[in-house]
């Protein structure tokens, strides 16, 4: 089972990185979601993969040797919550960017680092207003 999950993780990561490197803002957001899933799968695989034996202590005997490892699942739970929170902030950002700049093409996002001529023009404009 582990090799298959490892291959799946790799595939998901590859897709996610492709999406993150796209110019389209929506694809970037989707890429980050997929990336988080891929990593969660990797963490799950790195614990013991077993079926049908829950990690619950059986009286004096403690947890059975062959039980699933609960820790990676706890880690993933935390990671899911965090990545969900981040996803929400990124989505809000994406919506605001779309509204303010009027495009989802990241190549046309030049507000933070305007090309020199644009900066000069904006500057002139501001001076006029003042």
């Amino acid at each position, binding site marked *: 089972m582990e090799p298959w999950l490892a291959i799946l993780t790799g595939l998901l990561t590859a897709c996610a990185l492709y999406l*993150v490197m796209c110019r389209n*803002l929506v694809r*970037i957001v989707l890429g*980050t979601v997929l*990336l*988080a899933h891929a*990593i969660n799968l*990797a*963490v799950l*695989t*790195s*614990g013991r993969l077993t079926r049908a034996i829950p990690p619950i202590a059986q009286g004096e005997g403690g947890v059975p040797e062959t039980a699933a490892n609960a*820790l*990676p699942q706890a*880690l993933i739970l*935390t*990671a899911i919550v*965090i990545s969900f*929170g*981040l996803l929400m*902030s*990124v989505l809000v*950002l*994406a919506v*605001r*960017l779309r509204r*303010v*700049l009027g495009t989802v093409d*990241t190549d046309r*996002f*030049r*507000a*933070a*680092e305007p090309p020199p001529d644009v900066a000069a023009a904006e*500057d002139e404009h501001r001076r006029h207003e003042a």
Partner: protein
Amino acid sequence: MSAAWLLFLPIALPFAGAVLAFIAGRAGDRRAPQWVNVGTTALMTLVSLLLLSAVWRDGPQAIQMGGWAAPFGITLVADILGAVMVVITALSGLAVAVYAMADIDEGRAKLGWHALYLVLLAGVTGAFLTGDLFNLYVWFEVMLIASFCLLVLGGDKAQLDGGLRYVALNLVATVMFLMAIGLLYGLTGTLNMADLHVTLKTVDAPGLVTTIAVLFLGAFGIKSAVFPLFFWLPASYHVPPVAVSAIFAALLTKVGVYALIRLFTLVFTADVDYTHGILLVIAGATMVTGVLGAAAQNQVRKILSFHIISQIGYMVMGLALYTPLALLGAVFYLVHHIIVKANLFLVGGVAKRITGSFELDRIGGLYKAKPWLAVLFLIPALSLAGIPPLSGFWAKLVLIEASLEVEAWVIAGVALVVGLLTVFSMSKIWLEAFWKPHPDGDAAVGAVALTRGETVALVAPIVLLASITVIIGLAPQPFLDLAARSAQELLAPEAYVRVVLGGLP
């Protein structure tokens, strides 16, 4: 106060302060959140100094959260490095909190700026004090979300655009970090750093361990903005209000450097030639690209942003050389750099308030109008470039001495040349902003008059940070002693491991 409280309070205080600041802001009083912010950071400074003195006296301190013994529970632990970083976080946090009183407008304050700021500080201190890798990941995320919100709060175009660049690359970094954690856990079955120090020696899979180490290197490399992973930094640090830039410049990349130092002294020391060899090459390339990038810029905050990158190279160089003297230099450099860098951004902000712009082409005449500001700029600027007798001189001296000691001539040469180029950049700011007359005539300087309260809030933190720089420069011995003890602990972490694992072997 017991060690447990001293370890717990630096994290709990800013969280409590954040809640208070938020409630106070909601209650409608405009000034209340500011004072909560300043009060909390002042208290943090006090507590963290107590923590440092306890660590200095009794060695590393640790507590197990919730009473779960390590390696099963989460451990908070402070050795000298951790404690020093917490002190410096609180100090720079206090300085910027005071500055923010005059810098953050009412709109941003109403949106919860002060609460977010304190959450950011909580994330940073948490990262410095935790002894557990997954917990470190959680603190990184706390930091990331808080810093992201601070970056875009207010929502003008440039801020949103810069925010996207910042968050996209940092997200990849934290995801890489999590992947490395997962693999490491699969290999060793533990995530407690002290326990990893012990167990990783018994794992017989050198290839896999090195792969994981390089994955961590990538994750923290993005965080600390080393070559070639630094692109997010100069694309985003110049867009938010000055107080945000200053606290980012002081702390965020340094958390990455701290994590690198921690992991590559405590956990990944099996293949030092390989991993630290990579680090050395990265260090050199980082210094050079950073300083060349700065030379090409013409805007105060962008120049300073690129200088953060080049300075990170010096710290990584200290770690890469991996000798007691080099680590001493790295720790000393961290402390010196945080103070100086925050201060330069603050001075840049005041210069903007007085002259009206960050663009060097459009400002000038500051020396004639405000000679005291010129002095306050020169102290951190010359210190950054490493001119004696300021703090940066000692930091660079120790690092270069360390590299000569192991006959690493190339990196020593690079460090010296980059120091010279730093002088070039600083003199560019000096000539353009301070020396040459203002392009719009003398009347344009100080056209917007600052009120007396504003002036105090803007200048007091600059004076505080500048005097720390001067004190470190004139009396470096206690600070060097502190860094030396820290280097000793890093290279021989037995005491750290013992205090975390308690009775376990």
